[in-house]
Each structure stands twice: as structure tokens, then as C-alpha cells.
């Protein structure tokens, strides 16, 4: 058994696609029309055969309260790993990405949190233990 896809609920798939590819730098793996929506998954350029992230529509009535409760408490909906958090933070900030938490030490990792403009907070993590 393998984990091949995980999802984040996005307010708008087209807007999410732009943010996750043009800003974050992920690439599209699957883009299949599915009625009103798309089966839209992205992968990392660094691991194109790795786990896919599904940009899932937020239509279900439970999704709104779920997403806003997480955002209220500052809790990220997904977490991405980077080699150099400082560099990635500077790069994304230049692109206008809004950080709710600037790079901060959190035990064995350094982390930052930004707004994906589609209703989610996303965490970036750099493993610092053993460096």
C-alpha cells in the first residue's frame, strides 16, 4: 500500500492551479475534466513520481467550517519540505506570498506558514536537526 495522493480543499481550482504552479513551482500531473470540476493534481519538480497533491473543490458544506476553523487557530492544511527555508521564504515573499508566520525554530525543524489565497494556510519546513 502506498500514499499516492493527498488533498487540500481550494476555493477556486483555476486560481489554486496558478498559485501552486506559478508561485510555489509545482507541476501539473493530472488535469482531467470531471463535470463541474477537474481531477487536478500537482507534484514537485524535485520528485515528479512522488505523492500527488489534489487541489480539491471546497463545495461540500462541511469544508467551509473545517477550513475556517483551521485558519482561525493558525493551523496549516498541508506541509511542504524545503532544503533552505530562508531562501524559499525570500523568494516567495518577493512574489507577493503572504506569510502568517515568518521562519521560526520549532524543535528539530525550522518552519514558516503562508496563505495559499485559496482558503488555506500552508507550512514550509526545513529539517535542521543533524545539520
Amino acid at each position, binding site marked *: 500500500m502506498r500514499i499516492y495522493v493527498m488533498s487540500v480543499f481550494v476555493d477556486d481550482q483555476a486560481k489554486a492551479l496558478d498559485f501552486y504552479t506559478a508561485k510555489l513551482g509545482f507541476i501539473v500531473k493530472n488535469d482531467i475534466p470531471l463535470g463541474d470540476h477537474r481531477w487536478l493534481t500537482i507534484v514537485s519538480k524535485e520528485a515528479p513520481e512522488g505523492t500527488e497533491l489534489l487541489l480539491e473543490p471546497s463545495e461540500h458544506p462541511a469544508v467551509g467550517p473545517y477550513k475556517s476553523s483551521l*485558519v*482561525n*487557530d*493558525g*493551523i496549516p492544511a498541508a506541509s511542504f519540505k524545503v532544503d533552505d527555508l530562508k531562501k524559499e521564504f525570500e523568494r516567495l515573499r518577493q512574489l507577493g506570498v503572504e506569510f502568517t508566520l515568518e521562519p521560526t*525554530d520549532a*524543535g528539530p525543524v525550522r518552519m514558516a506558514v503562508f496563505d495559499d489565497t485559496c482558503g488555506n494556510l500552508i507550512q514550509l519546513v526545513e529539517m535542521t536537526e543533524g545539520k
Partner: protein
Amino acid sequence: MNDDQLDNVFKALGDPIRRGILDRLAKRPGQSLFEICASSFAEDGRSLSRQTISQHLDMLERAGLVQTHWSGRTKMHTFDNAPLRKAAAAWLNKHLRKGSAA
């Protein structure tokens, strides 16, 4: 400051986890629940559930020691030392002055 308020302040202070939260909020004001949980783990090595931290924050808020504001759609917490000053004026100072010779 009345007796109920004074009780709330001393009750809120009567716990090492809550004092730790205040210490960290004093160092870095404006933290979300997520950050408070992460920093309590990073600094104390204590892994507490969000539910537990959330209950501690409620007590601190009731005592006025933690103030909240919204940054976008995220609730941020900040330490307010005003209740400490008021508690000092209402009760602590009375005894601290007497003992100042020691």
C-alpha cells in the same frame, strides 16, 4: 480590581504551563494557537494537545492576561501585564512594602 478578578489572576498564574505560555508570549507577541503549541514543544520539549493549550489560553484570557486580535482570519494572542499591576496594587503591594526592609 475586585476579589473575583484577583482570584482569576492568581488562578491563571497558578500553573507552570500557563506561566510558560505567558513567558513565550511576552518574548514574541501575536501568536496563533498553532504557534503557541509549536513553541511550547520547541522550548519545553512538552508536547501538549491543542485542546489543552486552548483551555489554558481561555483561563489566561478570562484573567485578562492574554488579549486577542485578528490578523486576517487568524486569531493572535498577546500577553497583557496590566492585570499583574492591578493585582499588585490591589493586594500584593500592601505586603511587599512591609517586607521591603528584609
